[in-house]
């Protein structure tokens, strides 16, 4: 039966729209009244921060595109034109450039928060996998965006990364030619990267939409990792988390502003202020900082195809993480051993970042290989086994009665209660 939606809004205009298209009801349900666990810490800000960051990137990017010229002869100069002649062009460009770094900082913290508190576990597997899709799309977008200024590192970075596909047996070289649109990185490559760099952020918006839908079906995880038991465990999203997210957004904007206004080239490579020159390879071709761990994995494997597969595998392994981790307990707070190997993983990833920034020689090769090995061991061996062996701490009964103060034993010496499956 087709009919109008029965809206509760009193304002006649809002009511008129809402009866025909209940977007106001939707917002009211999903963002105002939405029941949210009451015990979030500030790490739960980072999803909202990523959303804000995506909006900033799209807004600044649209204005950059009005003044940028995607042509090998003019791209570098058009960036300088933006910096010098366009009103507030320097602000728009530095915000976009540093916004990319901020985006990865935010998303990496968001991801590691999910790892620590087990946010990838049932029933949130699909939510997590959509997040990994967003991460992959972000990486592709950032890589292509970095090519657009057509500096030395743009050109040589594009050459190195596209050449990775030549490692694919038989069809590799043909794929590379197809990606380039020619026989080297050139104008055709720049044009298609520009087109895709404009397209992909909107694909990201689409996947973020699915990410949020999935989130609003399962509800948020929380620092205790236990399910919401009763309405006592939750509070409405608005005003409690709108205001808490606002605090996070203010602090985030402070860090962002400090970068943009006082050290806008902190993350930038000086080589990218040299116009692209296909006849002169820079002394070191180093990717942007947010790719360094993956670059280190690539170089830690002494075989080209093997390195490429391990590099892509390091992301792919995240897709199956919900099934690799066999422990029924989500939050690392109740997993004494996982809590330690989690920090080993963090150290391994940081070490890989440092390795990626150095020449692959001497001690760096050793560190790179050990850290790569640990990265894969962590996900493929330790997590599956740990879930079976580890004895988790007793879980609290509910979010609203989380702590048994005094550290006494559970009533009746009850053993750890495994997480109930929904």
């Amino acid at each position, binding site marked *: 039966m087709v009919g109008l939606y029965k809206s509760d809004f009193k304002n006649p205009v809002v009511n008129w729209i809402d009866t025909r298209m209940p977007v106001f009801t939707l917002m009211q349900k999903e963002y105002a009244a939405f029941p949210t666990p009451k015990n979030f810490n500030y790490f739960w800000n980072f999803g909202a921060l990523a959303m804000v960051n995506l909006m900033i990137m799209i807004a600044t990017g649209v204005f950059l595109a009005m003044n940028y010229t995607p042509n090998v002869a003019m791209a570098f*100069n058009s960036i300088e034109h933006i910096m010098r002649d366009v009103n507030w062009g320097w602000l728009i460009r530095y915000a976009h450039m540093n916004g990319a770094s901020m985006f990865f900082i935010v998303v990496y913290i968001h991801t590691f928060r999910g790892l620590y508190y087990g946010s990838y576990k049932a029933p949130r597997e699909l939510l997590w996998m959509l997040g990994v899709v967003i991460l992959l799309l972000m990486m592709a977008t950032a890589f292509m965006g970095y090519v657009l200024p057509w500096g030395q590192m743009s050109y040589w970075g594009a050459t190195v990364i596209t050449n990775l596909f030549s490692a694919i047996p038989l069809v590799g070289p043909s794929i590379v030619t197809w990606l380039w649109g020619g026989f080297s990185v050139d104008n055709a490559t720049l044009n298609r990267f520009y087109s895709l760099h404009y397209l992909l952020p909107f694909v990201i918006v689409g996947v973020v939409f699915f990410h949020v839908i999935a989130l609003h079906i399962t509800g948020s995880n929380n620092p205790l990792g236990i399910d919401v038991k009763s309405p006592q465990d939750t509070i409405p999203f608005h005003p409690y988390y709108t205001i808490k997210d606002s*605090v996070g957004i203010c602090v985030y904007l402070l860090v962002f502003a400090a970068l943009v206004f006082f050290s806008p080239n902190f993350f930038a490579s000086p080589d990218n*202020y040299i116009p692209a020159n296909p006849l002169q390879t820079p002394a070191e071709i180093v990717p942007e900082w947010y790719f360094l761990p993956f670059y280190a994995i690539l170089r830690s494997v002494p075989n080209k195809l093997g390195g490429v597969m391990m590099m892509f595998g390091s992301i792919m392994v995240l897709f199956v993480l919900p099934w690799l981790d066999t422990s029924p307990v989500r939050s690392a707070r109740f997993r004494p051993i996982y809590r330690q190997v989690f*920090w080993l993983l963090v*150290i391994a990833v940081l070490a890989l970042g440092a390795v990626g920034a150095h020449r692959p020689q001497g001690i760096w090769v050793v560190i790179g290989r050990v850290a790569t090995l640990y990265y894969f061991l962590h996900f493929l061996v330790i997590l599956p086994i740990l879930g079976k062996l580890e004895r988790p701490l007793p879980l609290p009964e509910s979010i609203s009665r989380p702590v048994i103060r005094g550290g006494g034993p559970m009533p009746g010496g009850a053993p750890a209660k495994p997480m109930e499956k929904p």
Partner: protein
Amino acid sequence: MRFKYVAPALLLGAALVTALGAAPAAAQQDVAKFKQSQPTEAPSLPKLAWSFDGPFGTFDRASAQRGFLIYQQVCSACHSMDQLYYRNLSGIGLSEEQIKAIAASVQVPGGVNDQGQPIERPGLPSDHFKAPFPNEEAARAANNGALPPDQSVLELAREGGPNYLYAILTGYRDPPAGLKMQPGMSYNLYFPGFQIAMPQPLQDDSVQYTDGVKPTLDQEAKDVVTFLTWAANPEMEERKQTGVRVVLFLVFLTGVTYATKRRIWSDLHH
């Protein structure tokens, strides 16, 4: 309590990374000291105090103007500054009349006449800085095969920025005994590989300053680096001044927002 192990683990991680990073670097420095007659690593860059340092830094106008004088009389013989217009020179405090006179001192292509023949005209403030060579080949032919880099964003395009540029300008020395120099190259302590195609551009008294400042090599180098830093970052003063206001506003906004958050959440805790 919940983050009991965060700090120790981070410290451990940081210490590990630092230790692993520092060990080979320290070893390399020792090697460099050992081979003093013919170093393998450039010495670390001098750290100068620049007028444009820090969140409140501004360009010393007088120094930048002296630097522009050096660019006009020395650098511009070989180095272009393609991104700059003459009108930009108002940014280092030159007056409209001075800029008009500077622009008019060069001849630039002026389109074609009514016979279709290309003509030249005196430069205007709206013209780009005139390049010394018509193309890369001409530049290389006049410079022993080397290409003098464009200086518009040179300060941003070198690791170390102003300190590196200063070090190069003051880093010319006689080559150590026994070092085989390529023909036409000069020895420079701070240039990668130590052999640089640019002959020493500045000495004491290379230029005549009109404001009474003594043109020592050190002074000239500082002045031209100030000019080049301005040329690469003409927005810097506006950027930092805006930044101070933005940060002050955000600090205020953070405080207000946090107070509001405390107030809204206060009804949950009893």
